[in-house]
């Protein structure tokens, strides 16, 4: 019976109902898209690091997990590392972030890279030969509409696309190490070094030994590093998600507050009637809360559907830099957030409703 009344109420003001649902849906989509992009981008980055084929990751002191903006390592270190016991190979790369986005350009020695993991699998074209050559992965090529032979300007330099490789190894955009070092004024410097050992199961003890010798450097096993690439370990991202969720909850709260406040005002008379025929405050609250809950659930469902829309957009508009995953684990969380925001929004209108004087409400036109 109550559900009858609730559906009748919501159906009686279809536009407002739709707008409320839509607003909550946008709130939900906002959160899910952000979370999806965060997870997706980080997962891809982890996957690419796995694809490097190294066992140990060697980084300069005081650097963060993502964002390699400087190249403070000497390029003498790989040779030194290779003299360490169990180390079979070491390769340094230099990473230069590109302005305006999550992309970066990596300088590497393609022969060393091939020794490390067999090298790139080229879909079109081939490896780096000249200093002006650049190779990119299939997604970046698609996003920027690049073909073998195209010219692309990065870091104030025109590069010629030599090859397009299958995504999933280390980086998306690569040039010759020496070329990038010269271009950025960092000759002889590296951002990171990948180390291969004779027995990967001993990677941890080798890391421990290296740490004693190279004090202050950040040295991890590759597995350890990949497990660090998660939202909770990327402080900035975590805070950012927190802020967006906060904003979304406030928006949801305001929307529901306004919707339910006007609903209560408009329905002053109806609420008075319910009380006049013996309806208790609990009944009135029950109706308003159920109505709000329904709005929040419909909004969440719609928001989840809309998220597939943003995912499609991400895939077709910016495939290389942003990957949006569907994070099912967040569906209940975000629904919970929407419900809480909405229920907070209905509290004040509901209090107003139950405090209304019955005869005044009945004479309300």
């Amino acid at each position: 019976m109550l559900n009858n009344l609730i559906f009748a109420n919501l159906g009686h003001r279809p536009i407002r109902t739709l707008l409320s649902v839509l607003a909550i849906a946008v709130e939900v989509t906002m959160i899910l898209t952000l979370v999806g992009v965060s997870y997706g981008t980080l997962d891809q980055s982890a996957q690419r690091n796995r694809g490097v084929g190294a066992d140990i990751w060697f980084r300069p002191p005081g650097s963060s997990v993502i964002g390699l903006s400087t190249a403070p390592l000497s390029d003498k270190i790989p040779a030194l590392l290779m003299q360490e016991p169990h180390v079979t190979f070491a390769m340094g790369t230099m990473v230069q972030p590109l302005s305006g986005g999550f992309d970066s350009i990596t300088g590497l020695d393609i022969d060393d890279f091939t020794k490390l993991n067999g090298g790139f699998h080229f879909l079109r074209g081939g490896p780096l030969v000249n200093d002006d050559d650049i190779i990119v992965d299939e997604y970046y090529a698609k996003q920027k509409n690049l073909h073998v032979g195209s010219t692309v300007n990065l870091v104030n330099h025109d590069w010629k696309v030599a090859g397009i490789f299958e995504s999933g190894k280390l980086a998306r955009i690569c040039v010759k190490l020496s070329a990038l070092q010269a271009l950025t004024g960092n000759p002889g410097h590296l951002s990171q070094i990948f180390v291969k050992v004779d027995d990967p199961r001993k990677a941890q003890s080798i890391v421990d030994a290296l740490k004693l010798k190279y004090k202050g450097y950040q040295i991890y096993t590759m597995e350890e590093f990949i497990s660090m690439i998660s939202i909770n370990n990327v402080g900035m991202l975590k805070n950012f998600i927190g802020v967006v969720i906060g904003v979304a909850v406030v928006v949801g709260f305001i929307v529901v507050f306004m919707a339910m406040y006007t609903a209560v005002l408009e329905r002053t008379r109806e609420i008075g009637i319910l009380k006049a025929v013996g309806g208790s405050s609990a009944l009135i609250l029950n109706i308003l809360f159920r109505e709000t809950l329904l709005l929040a659930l419909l909004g969440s469902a719609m928001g989840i559907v809309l998220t597939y829309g943003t995912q499609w957009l991400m895939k077709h508009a910016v495939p290389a830099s942003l990957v949006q995953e569907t994070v099912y684990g967040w569906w209940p969380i975000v629904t919970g957030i929407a419900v809480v925001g909405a229920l907070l929004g209905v509290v004040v209108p509901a209090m107003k409703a139950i405090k209304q004087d019955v005869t005044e409400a009945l004479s309300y036109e």
Partner: protein
Amino acid sequence: MSEAGIIEVHGLTKTYQVGDVEVHALRGVDLQVSKGEFVAIVGASGSGKSTLFHILGGLTPMSSGAVRINGRDLSGMTNAERTELRKTTVGFVFQKYNLLPTLTAEDNIRIVQYIADREMTFAPGFQEILNLLGIADRLKHKPRALSGGQQQRVAIARGIVNSPAILLADEPTGNLDSENAAAVLKLMKDLNKRLGQTILMITHDAEAASYADRIVRMRDGRIMMAEHQTN
């Protein structure tokens, strides 16, 4: 009357404050209604009839005086207890119908069954009443699609569906043609006789008042006189 009435009103006053102006709607009403009585309340417009009903049903707080319903002092009750009173004991038929606009006629009736925790089916006897009221075939319509008289009869059906011990009917035939009015009045008389329901009915119509056991006349917020009918 030696036995205490189901409704007892002593020195009841009600003053509305409208801005700086005080409106004395009731200026000292004394009234006793016995269980099972059918009382008609007549009086000029503005004499305080509806106000008296709203106080009896606990919808409006009184200014002074004493009102006892079923032996319970109204002014000593909490809001929740007054709501409970309407849920279990006092049924209303409002002058302005007061139907819920978003619900069908049927659901308007059922919702008071729901509120009173009654089974939400119409017993055969009640189905007959709906026929008698001439609204059985209008139940699927919303109030907007019903005429004033039809809405009034839906409001009557809602007022009696739970068979309240006390029925307060504010001009239940005000919008009805004489034929429908007669049907409604016969129905109320029948409920009063058969179920022993106590009925108070406000009316402007002498013909309608003649169905009651007693007529109470109000003027300027007071009760003028009571006359017992012989029928």
